[in-house]
């Protein structure tokens, strides 16, 4: 670990920190339907969209109305992308004349983008037309992110409202989030990336002669516009297979820093949005603090592990950190930082191959995702998943002050506990059970490129990443029918099996009365609460995976120390 390395991390963190309040506060205004400085530009656009789609934006939805809207919207979006993938060959903007995608891979890909996962079992530059990239993938990059933020807004309203039946209007939340939050930042961000050198064109790939005299194909396309929302919406699906390791997607050290900032900024800012909307910003800062502590704890481990390097290589007389699978332009510190950023959120974009990390270095992204994407999390999804743990913590520890646990004045009773528990159950169920099946059946082992604990980690990582809607790949695991279908299903349930109880919980909370805070109230912003929240996350969230992680990265690390590799 070096001072320069840590300075990068701290600069990134400070850049995120200074935007928490202004962006969070702005998002709160947008989600509350208040006027903002961008209203003169977007209100007319908004009206036209409502008029064309026949949406009454003032109509309030119950929790199940909201849920049906989310599910219906996602289903239609999925169908649209599936059809596009299966017909791109006959459609325009396909200068490379790519064929249609196979059905199982198209299913996997469509689910992947619809659920904000962006798990990629294909290489973008050799599979997808420009039309598919722009109208299919970029569309989902926007709306799946906006749907996540809308869901978070619905939960926040459930917490903030009293004796209410409704949680807001999904269509209005979706459209406002896209127009007022995602679009403006993306437009500015896109220009910044173009300035750094990311391509933005419709030209076919260029064949050039390199300085060494070899012939080389340079990919092009509408890349910068997709790159920015890939990070901002914590989507993570690269335009090209190289993702943010490639010099086109991530050309300079500044673009690297900027992209990491894009990944974190909305997730971090939403904590303030939450605080503002429940009229107690301390609540938001408490969540931000818990997230930051977990973020830095994870960063210390991954940076230390990568910086320490591989003992087997040290024996060969090569000193220094682990450079396998890393882009030389970024090195150990920026790769470790990125790996932590991308898995602390549900982004999944990579600037180095996690498969080539040291065993312990690879454990960190894995654990980050196993916690349920709650360090900063996906845009919106991070906040609502985190709030599920908050409710669990309030219930367990809140009893210790001698009252029925209350969260912001609302009693946490049978229904709330049931829904929070259901949503928390999803992660262990969908990560461990498919992994258990995959490690003992031939189809699960057929496309595995490593054996022993490392092979185990590859399978575990695939199901962890898809379930968490992260989408980063450990690599080393090839697509086949089994994985296309199982990871696809996993992404689907990873998103919606969690969303349904979250909305049900929001509905239950909205209907409650709130008791004013008093000296006998359990406060959810004190340092001790932050500590309890972290404790609950680690014991309930992480310990569940300890047996699995022990058989993967942990034992691999111990064996590496003895000189064994896999």
């Amino acid at each position, binding site marked *: 670990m070096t001072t320069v390395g840590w300075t990068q991390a701290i600069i990134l963190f400070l850049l995120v920190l200074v935007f928490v309040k202004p962006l969070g506060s702005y998002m709160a205004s947008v989600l509350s339907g208040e006027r903002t400085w961008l209203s003169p530009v977007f209100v007319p656009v908004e009206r036209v969209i409502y008029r064309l789609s026949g949406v009454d934006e003032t109509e309030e939805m119950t929790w199940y109305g909201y849920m049906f809207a989310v599910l219906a919207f996602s289903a239609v979006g999925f169908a649209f992308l599936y059809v596009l993938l299966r017909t791109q060959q006959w459609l325009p903007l396909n200068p490379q004349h790519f064929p249609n995608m196979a059905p199982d891979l198209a299913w996997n890909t469509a689910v992947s983008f619809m659920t904000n996962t962006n798990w990629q079992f294909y290489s973008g530059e050799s599979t997808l037309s420009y039309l598919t990239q722009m109208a299919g993938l970029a569309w989902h990059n926007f709306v799946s992110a906006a749907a996540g933020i809308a869901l978070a807004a619905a939960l926040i309203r459930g917490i903030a409202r009293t004796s209410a039946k409704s949680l807001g209007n999904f269509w209005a939340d979706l459209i406002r989030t896209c127009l007022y939050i995602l679009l403006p930042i993306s437009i500015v961000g896109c220009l910044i990336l173009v300035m750094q050198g990311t391509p933005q064109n419709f030209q076919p790939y260029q064949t050039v002669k390199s300085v060494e005299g070899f012939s080389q194909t340079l990919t092009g396309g509408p890349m910068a516009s997709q790159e920015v929302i890939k990070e901002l919406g914590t989507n993570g699906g690269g335009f090209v297979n190289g993702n943010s390791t490639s010099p086109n997607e991530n050309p300079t050290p500044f673009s690297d820093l900027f992209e990491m900032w894009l990944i974190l900024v909305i997730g971090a800012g939403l904590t303030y949005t939450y605080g503002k909307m429940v009229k107690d910003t301390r609540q938001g800062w408490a969540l931000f603090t818990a997230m930051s502590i977990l973020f830095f704890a994870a960063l210390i481990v991954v940076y230390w592990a990568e910086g320490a390097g591989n003992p087997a290589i040290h024996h060969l007389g090569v000193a220094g950190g682990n450079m396998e699978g890393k882009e030389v332009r970024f090195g150990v510190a920026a790769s470790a930082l990125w790996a932590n950023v991308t898995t602390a959120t549900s982004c999944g974009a990579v600037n180095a191959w996690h498969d080539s990390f040291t065993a312990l270095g690879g454990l960190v992204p894995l654990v980050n995702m196993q916690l349920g994407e709650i360090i900063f999390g996906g845009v919106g999804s991070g906040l609502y998943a985190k709030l599920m743990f908050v409710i669990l913590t309030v219930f367990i520890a809140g009893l210790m002050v001698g*009252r029925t646990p209350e969260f912001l004045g609302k009693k946490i009773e049978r229904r709330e506990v*049931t829904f929070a528990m259901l949503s928390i159950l999803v992660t262990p169920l969908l990560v461990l*059970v498919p992994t258990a099946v995959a490690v003992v059946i031939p189809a699960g082992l057929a496309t595995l490129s490593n054996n022993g604990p490392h092979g185990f980690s590859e399978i575990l990582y695939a199901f962890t990443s898809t379930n968490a809607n992260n989408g980063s790949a450990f690599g080393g695991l090839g697509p086949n029918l089994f994985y296309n279908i199982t990871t696809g299903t996993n992404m689907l349930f990873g998103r919606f099996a969690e969303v349904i109880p979250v909305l049900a919980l929001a509905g239950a909370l909205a209907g409650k009365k709130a*008791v004013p805070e008093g000296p006998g109230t359990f406060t959810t912003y004190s340092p001790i609460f932050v500590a309890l929240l972290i404790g609950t996350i680690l014991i309930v969230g992480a310990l569940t995976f300890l047996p699995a992680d022990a*058989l993967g990265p942990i034992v691999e690390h111990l064996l590496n120390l003895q000189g064994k590799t896999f």
Partner: protein
Amino acid sequence: MIPQRRIERRPKSRSLFDSAIVTRAILDSFKKLDPRWQARNPVMFVVEIGSVVTSGFFIYDLVSHTGHPGFDFAIAAWLWFTVLFANFAEAVAEGRGKAQADYLRRTKSDTTAKKVDEQGRISQVPSTALRKGDIVQVDAGDLIPADGDVIKGAASVDESAITGESAPVIRESGGDRSAVTGGTRVLSDQIMVRVSANPGESFLDRMISLVEGAQRQKTPNEIALSILLAGLTIIFLIAVATLAPFSIYAGSKQTLVVLIALLVCLIPTTIGGLLSAIGIAGMDRVMQRNVLAMSGRAVEAAGDVDTLLLDKTGTITLGNRQAVEIIPAAGIDAKDASRVAYVSSIPDETPEGRSIVALAQRSGVDGDGELPAGATFVPFSAYTRMSGVDINGTKIRKGAPDAILNWVRENGGAPGTELSSEVERIARSGGTPLLLARDKMVLGAIHLKDILKPSMTERFERLRAMGIRTVMITGDNPLTAAAIAKEAGVDDFLAEATPETKMELIKREQGSGRLVAMTGDGTNDAPALAQADVGVAMNSGTQAAKEAANMVDLDSDPTKLIEVVEIGKQLLMTRGALTTFSIANDVAKYFAILPAMFATAYPVMNVLNVMRLSTPQSAILSAVIFNALIIIALIPLALKGVRYRPRGASAVLRENVLIYGVGGIIAPFIGIKLIDLILAALHLT
């Protein structure tokens, strides 16, 4: 004179670990192994299934001469112990209640009742034949055959069989002391009672089923907690079940016995095993305070109370007011005023009247306490609102200021306003002003003062620290009420209270999400008692009040509510503390069992064996034994409740997190290591 049979007094308290209770509890622990009983508790049900399966493996080992019969036997045995220990905890908690119920059943002997028919004829019928609405006559020495209200007469009644208090109480027709309970005994006089409960529905019957816990329902918080525990059980079930294929991949297939051992260690058996014991013990602690809670829900709600409504008289102040000052009107001699006040109060037997006599005597009025000859007493009535004495045509009156002023005017006097400032001053200071008049003249004012019960101010202070708002209910005018409220240190008051305004107050508080507790005894209180979340009726009160309330205080002490609130809080805290402890324990158990499981496939994993446990078998067994023993070790805590001091939430939380959270992480590391050392020393593994 009817010979008095000695009445057995209900024993109020008994040690938790009385040998009779323990013996019975041990037997009950085995009876509770019945799967139908266990199925009510998902966590322990999983343990029981685990015990059956591991026992099956042990028997298979013996028959087939394979496997590790010694190890499998040890695991199976300790899993059974885990279930039995949890059963024992519940049985002990029920023990005191069952002993009480046995005693009460003996009290419930069938008696012969003297039923009075419409013509007034008396016939002897068995008490079981009495129905609601029947009238019975009860004479001195008789057992009252059924619950009811006194409709004629007054009697002293020995209620010790129910309340445990040996001092007899007066029960009389009309008013708020008319209720009698079946099974208590009339000591003197004769009363007519209208029966208010059919056989099997009496207070005694309800009391028996309550203390016995026969109809015990899970409380809302208990249900929520059970769901959490079931959820955690499912999570750990997934973690352990998937470990089977994982270990096959790792080339180190695990036996089912080892997997079950891990599962039982990880699922929250500590809180799962003690949960119902905590609830029963909470109700039992309320019973020990001589309060009968109609449901566990009521006790739990008491812990959540935000607003406490307390009647001024009897709760905040002593029932009687005392005269502290006699202020003469302008131009009246102080001695003269005192003398008239004295005379007017000689026949007045109320505590207020007697305090006026005492005050006058202290200020130098001579007198033998006898009315002068020819004087007649005019008693107080709610209509005149004054009392006094007529002596040879001279009329002396004392009473409410407006009533006296009207009376003087009616006599042709023209009272001045010079005393009105004094009257207001007295009212403002929380006292009750009386005016004293003779014929056409107002002679002076008397200051009656409410005397606060000792140490109530500190109690309100404690309640405030707990976050509970106290509201004083009084019939006084707002001025007086404000002054007493200030002196007593309550947060708010409701003056000139009527049953309607009281009800409104409760609904308003509940409307803003608060939980309200109150005490009451009169029939007027019944609707409010029913509306309040926690309503405590006094046993001395009317049948209507007792039926509307969800608790009955057998000692009829209105301040008891505060203790009930504390018990409710302690109950919730105990649940939270043990849940936290139980979950925190898992860290150490992972570190004990995981390296042991993969000791052969991955010897390097021994690095994780931070406790340096001697052998893999010993590690697993030690964790299982610790898991079982911790239930036994925590039974006293579950039954007595965690220590409770009224403080703010953050202070309570900090302390409990330190003890049960941090302690819960550390304790099993030490415990498992010690058990391992003992097992190794005894060469048991």
